[in-house]
């Protein structure tokens, strides 16, 4: 028998404490324990990006993080992307550019795009495509997603 692990972490800016099995993934804990179902499971082996979160600001697949690993660290999920004032410019751009069809991959894309624009405020189309290559979308052909991210970069530049 394994013993449960107590974990303290900052999640979307809030101090959170939870108990988990040592072998549970961060994805499972976010969804099944903490009720943060915006993070999606598409493959559970790091190939689709639907479960993207930021771990200490770095983009990771939450299916490939053991929940105990986040003890003492900061996690940002899709639920933490929008400010209290509404939508993040990336979210707004996804709406305005019809960059989602079914929407299941959308949280992962938005979290990934946020990580990109934090690091590279003025990406080229090729940089956007490269950065988003770990996020699979089966509906859009990526065209409108890439346009939305480029547009969000412009909007954020104007706002600066």
């Amino acid at each position: 028998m394994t013993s449960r692990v107590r974990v303290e972490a900052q999640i979307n800016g809030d101090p959170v404490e939870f108990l988990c099995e040592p072998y549970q993934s961060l994805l499972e804990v976010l969804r099944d324990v903490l009720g943060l179902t915006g993070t999606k499971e598409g493959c559970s082996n790091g190939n689709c990006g639907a479960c993207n979160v930021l771990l200490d600001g770095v983009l990771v697949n939450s299916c490939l993080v053991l929940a105990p690993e986040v003890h003492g660290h900061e996690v940002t999920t899709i639920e933490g992307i929008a400010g209290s004032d509404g939508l993040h410019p990336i979210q707004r751009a996804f709406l305005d550019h019809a960059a989602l069809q079914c929407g299941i991959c959308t949280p992962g894309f938005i979290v990934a795009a946020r990580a990109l624009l934090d690091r590279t405020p003025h990406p080229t189309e090729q940089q956007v495509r490269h950065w988003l290559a770990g996020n699979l979308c089966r509906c859009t052909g990526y065209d409108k997603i890439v346009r939305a991210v480029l547009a969000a970069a412009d909007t954020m530049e104007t706002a600066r």
Partner: protein
Amino acid sequence: MTTDTLPADTETVETAAPARPHYRVIGTRPVRPDGVEKVVGRALYGADIYLPGTLYGKVVRSPHAHARIRAIDVSRAAALPGVKAIATAADLPLVEDKILVTGEGSVNQRYQSMNTLARDKVLYHGHAVAAVAAVSPHIAEEAVALIEVDYEVLPAVIDVRDAMAAGAPVLHDDLRTAEEGRKLDGPTNVAEHLRYQRGDLARGFAEADVIVEREFVTATVHQGYIEPHATTVLANADGQITIWCSTQGAFAVREQTADILQTPISRIRVIPTEIGGGFGGKLTVYLEPIAALLSRKSGYRPVKMAMSRAEVFAATGPTSASVIRVKLGATRDGRITAAQAELIYAAGAFPGSPVGAGAGVIFNCYRIPNLQIDGYDVLTNQPRAGAYRAPGGTNAAFASETVIDEVCERIGMDPIEFRLRNGVREGDYRATGPVYARIGLRETLEAARRHPHYTAPLGGPNRGRGVASGYWGNWDGTSSASATVNPDGAVSLSEGSPDIGGSRASMAMILAETLGIDVTDVHPRIVDTDSVGYNDVTGGSRTTHGTGWAVYDLGKKLIAAMSQRAAHLWEVEPEAITFADGVFSCGDHALSFKELAGRLGEAGGPVMVSTTMETTGAGPGFATHLVDVEVDPETGKVTILRYTAVQDAGTAIHPSYVEGQMQGGVAQGIGWALNEEYVYDQAGRLVNASYLDYRIPTALDLPMIDTVIVEAPNPGHPLGVRGVGETPIVPPAAAVANAIYHATGIRMTTLPMSPPRLLEAILAKES
């Protein structure tokens, strides 16, 4: 048409007469009503339902492609603490033959039962054999490992040619070939042989100056939706069953589950969650009846089940591998004289491949006086073929459209010119029978020829340009909806067509257009099966057409009901009320829709209307695609440099989502063309059941996909709508194959045209 509001990548082509009416809302690009909750992560999908006391279900799946089940021992699993229920086929009632039309084909409920949990034999690697419900996913997983199944392994058959051969392992001893309305003698894997014929084939080929005949082989491919199948089911002791699930059709889930469980249909309520992609793959049930069994057997606790990605690939409907032979004859001046095709499609474990639909696609773009099409539905030890976006169409068009390219080359004619000379128009017969009403194939060809892409320089060596056209028939079906008017003038719209790609936006727009109100004043909801009338599945590209028509009808009924209220208010006869531009008026009286809504209390009370209709008149969709590729001659790798998709949408309600359908279909078609395929080992086991090795395109594998929407209004719809979702996946494989030929001189006849295959062909050509 207001082309100036469109983004730079899009051109909208108005076709010759009759002039399109002026629309206020249709053709604009409002934000979708369900958008915000999706971008903030609040939208609830199939796996996002959590009820108190939920158990977690997991499935035991066959490790063999074909085996007899001698015995199942669940005792060790049942003894594991935390296990609450175990189900096998012994818990399922026997189901009689019953054919259900799903909109993308049909399913026999007897086979659906056998697919839900294997009864005597497992028929494919991944076939469900038993299931467990436990207090945690981990315990359920452990219990699955403790269930011992004793198999007698049987020889398996994966390739359709092997399955048709004498002495092939037979999947179902009782299956007989259906042919021309009768059943042939003897056990077989050939479920059906269908044939379309017209004219005199021999004479037609004799008239031809050029005849091209080729055989094509295509691999099994999967829809690849990002959301795995997921459901939560709660059975009550009183017989009620509530199902939360991600599906393309809540009513289909209800009927299929009722049949499989032999439970009264009215005792089942299906609550459709948001759906994370389907493309035809979520028309039939897999987990829902199992979860219902487990819920019953666990003392009526809710049971949640979600497939892993590997389970999705191994056990849910891929679409058929195929072998297709095409022979086409034409005169030197570019007239098709005769065409013949034989399509052999893998059905997987149960009859029902989309070979009939493929037979429809293969020549339906062209006027062909003499033709014969033979189709064979052939069982293989693979998961039962599900529908996949224009089922059977991509492989069929890959065959016919590359043969046409070769004919064009042989007679020295431009491929668009050839297609214009032979392309169908209003009044022509389809290869499969019916006569076309107004259609837009020629408009797509003309727009493609005019497009700068068609004449742009290729800009380098090892590059080529390909052209292909495509057809999809589209489907009508039944739709119901209801609407209520709120005191603030907004309209709440309840519909039952799961929204898989933005249809709530289109429905809101159609109602807003009809009522003369703002689109933001329509609040559409997808409701459960107890809360709206019957709806067929979201499939067959029918939703914007069929449900859109129902919503249009609701709008007309709302106007009539509101006119009555206005008449009551103004104490006149209802016939005296006129409605125009969103305003009800009579003499000096005038109230906008919104103003009148605010006064319903004094005008006779609230307004609610509903409608249900079986539509007819779904107009076929046509597309023409252009693609530029570059081939690395040393590796066989193909890069898509540029892509332009031209398609007739009839009337584009929300152009962004029409473009989105076109771009998404193209992306899937490119994946099918270049890399996607099921890979099996010698024993018939699937070895690439992951997104790592089943290679769908990433953002880095595609360019921007330019779109041109052509609008040849569908005369069979009050707003001219025709379905757009499926047609765009039909041409890409052929277009890419033709581009590869023009880059390398090699005619690829196998899908996918993956690097090892193309490299082998390049090296063979060089030596």
